[in-house]
């Protein structure tokens, strides 16, 4: 058991899975010699060599498309797209092929591959380096989309993603790559994909979030508890798609009041589906309008103004208060 950052924890998962399974190949831009711009693939090249740790030419569609070919062959590629804002280049391979090869081939072939990519804002990066487009991939049957919220679940979910028989987009919240450390057991540990978790229990209000926003939401929940003794239940989705609606709909039946938090832009963002499921499964329990705390419907501003774009504890508390008072 050691204290690890999320970057180190994912790195641990890659090391362990590559040791145990020679089908696992890591590829992407600068994943080898530098160990990735966030050092998540550090040490893999030295340990596993150029055959299994590939610095590819600069082409995202190619990284995903060739990974798919490897997966069809029976390997387990884990490819990295340097920033999620460059995943758009590969959209056709994700949407039209990785998500469909099982279906198209009637089960003859499949795409057991992981597409790792750092997403989200808050690290003072350049344009295109702070995007959150869960909605682009959550809407595609055949794809899975996973977002860890800390070192321990990141490591466990990465193991599960590599072993998953279907393609997984693994969105890594770059804001918390090194924000804090957590005990991460050396022994292998997995978490089921497609299951959300209760991160904090409470009866007054349900807060639904994921990734880096979990921590701002927990912060808000604590603030609410201290200031006005409100106990918020905080749910960490962990998997965006296939969406697990059992836990949050249950929670809302208890609390009747909801706040959803995400970094992505508001309109047509991921909160919409959560609200839809609540409408379908917990409608009669809702005591107030569901509140969304999200990025605004603007392009993520350059970093001097970035803080203003991202949800923070204040905004979450305000929304919770509205949900509780209406």
């Amino acid at each position, binding site marked *: 058991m050691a204290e690890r950052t999320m970057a180190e924890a994912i790195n641990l998962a890659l090391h362990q899975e590559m040791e145990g399974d020679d089908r696992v190949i890591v590829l992407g831009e600068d994943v080898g010699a530098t160990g990735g711009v966030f050092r998540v693939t550090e040490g893999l090249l030295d340990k596993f060599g150029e055959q299994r740790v590939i610095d590819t030419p600069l082409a995202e*569609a190619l990284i995903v498309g060739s990974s798919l*070919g490897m997966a*069809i062959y029976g390997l387990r590629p884990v490819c990295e797209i340097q920033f999620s804002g460059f995943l758009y280049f590969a959209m*056709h391979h994700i949407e039209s092929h990785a998500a469909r090869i099982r279906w198209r081939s009637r089960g003859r072939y499949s795409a057991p591959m992981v597409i790792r990519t750092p997403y989200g804002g808050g690290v003072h990066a350049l344009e295109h380096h702070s995007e959150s487009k869960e909605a682009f991939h959550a809407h595609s049957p055949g794809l899975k989309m996973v977002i860890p919220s800390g070192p321990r679940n990141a490591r466990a979910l990465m193991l599960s993603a590599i072993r998953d028989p279907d393609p997984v987009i693994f969105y890594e919240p770059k804001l918390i790559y090194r924000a804090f450390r957590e005990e991460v057991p050396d022994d292998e540990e997995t978490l089921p994909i497609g299951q959300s978790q209760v991160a904090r229990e409470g009866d007054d209000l349900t807060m639904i979030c994921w990734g880096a926003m979990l921590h701002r939401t927990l912060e808000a929940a604590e603030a609410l508890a201290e200031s006005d003794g409100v106990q918020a239940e905080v749910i960490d989705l962990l998997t965006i798609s296939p969406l697990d609606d059992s836990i949050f709909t249950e929670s809302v039946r208890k609390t009747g009041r909801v706040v959803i938090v995400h970094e992505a832009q508001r309109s047509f963002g991921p909160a919409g589906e959560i609200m839809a499921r609540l409408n379908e499964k917990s409608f009669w329990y809702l005591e107030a309008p569901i509140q969304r705390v999200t990025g605004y419907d603007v392009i993520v501003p350059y970093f001097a103004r970035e803080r203003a774009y991202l949800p923070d504890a204040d905004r979450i508390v305000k929304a919770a208060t509205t949900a509780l008072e209406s």
Partner: protein
Amino acid sequence: MPRRELKIAPRLEDLSVLEQGGQVDDDLEPQLDDDLLRRLHRTMLLSRRFDERLLRWQRQGRIGTFAPAMGQEASQIGAAAALRDSDWMVPSYRESAAALWRGTPLWGLILYDAGYNEGAEVPEGQKDLPICVPVASQIPHAVGLAYAAKYRGTDEVVMVFFGDGATSEGDFHEAVNLAGVYRAPVVFVCQNNQWAISTPLEKQTAAETLAHKAVAYGIPGVRVDGNDVLGVYLAASEAVEQARAGDGPTLLECVTYRLSVHTTADDPSKYREEEDVEDWEEHDPIPRLRRYLLDRGTLSEDDVERLEQEVDDDIEGAWDEAEGRMQQLGDPVDMFDHVYAEMPPYLAEQREAFAQQHEG
């Protein structure tokens, strides 16, 4: 070196073996046994007659839109014939002739054309990828397969097919470039049939030939008469052996022509002259091969007649087989299958609701 011309190292060449009249180039003529030659001829003929029949069936509304291979039988089959069963074939949507060579049953192609997902199924053991509709997008998949085959230390080779129009897509560029860097065991077979729907080659690129594009990737480029099945077989075999030997990929341009419609939704009279088509019919690959086989006594005129009857019977039989299967395949609830290895709860709910609605 104030100003000097840059040279090109890898081979960039043009070749052909069998002329339309049946004359062969003695130096290049591959020594193929009669059996192989007969199979090449039979499969080309089968593919041609099958396309003709499909066109009729489509007009009768028995099947939907499809893309005939007519005119490209030598390019597709000559190339595919250079592969072993242990090699991989990665098609676009027009490689029905190559698919037949590889073992795909006629009825399977019919099922696909009739709109059944089951038609995209590749027979167990046959190492082909399913039909790929988005132009050029199969090329990176092929390079990934090739990388994996090499990583596993096999001697498998991957052959990927695509058209002249496909060379304009970024996927073509990115994939061939990667194969060059990793010397992946892959053969890129460009079916230059002169047209991308209504877009002629000269609007597709200013390159002198499509084989020239190999220079951008530091790999050999070979241009071959695509209606010359011996030439295609020779060029493809050289490329396959090079790949198998670990010496990397080749870009093979087969110069051919799409004798029929792009798909049955297309009307070529809008964009090309009937004369051009007639000129190219003069270069039809099937009579050319047949002339060669008759000359060398591998086939007799009677054989040919018998053969035509035979393939027509195969086609009729395939229709009955396909029709029989379509009866079984009616149930639309199957659309919920194969989305994930394991069906998520909400999808099971949707399936349930659908099933109820369609019983009740």
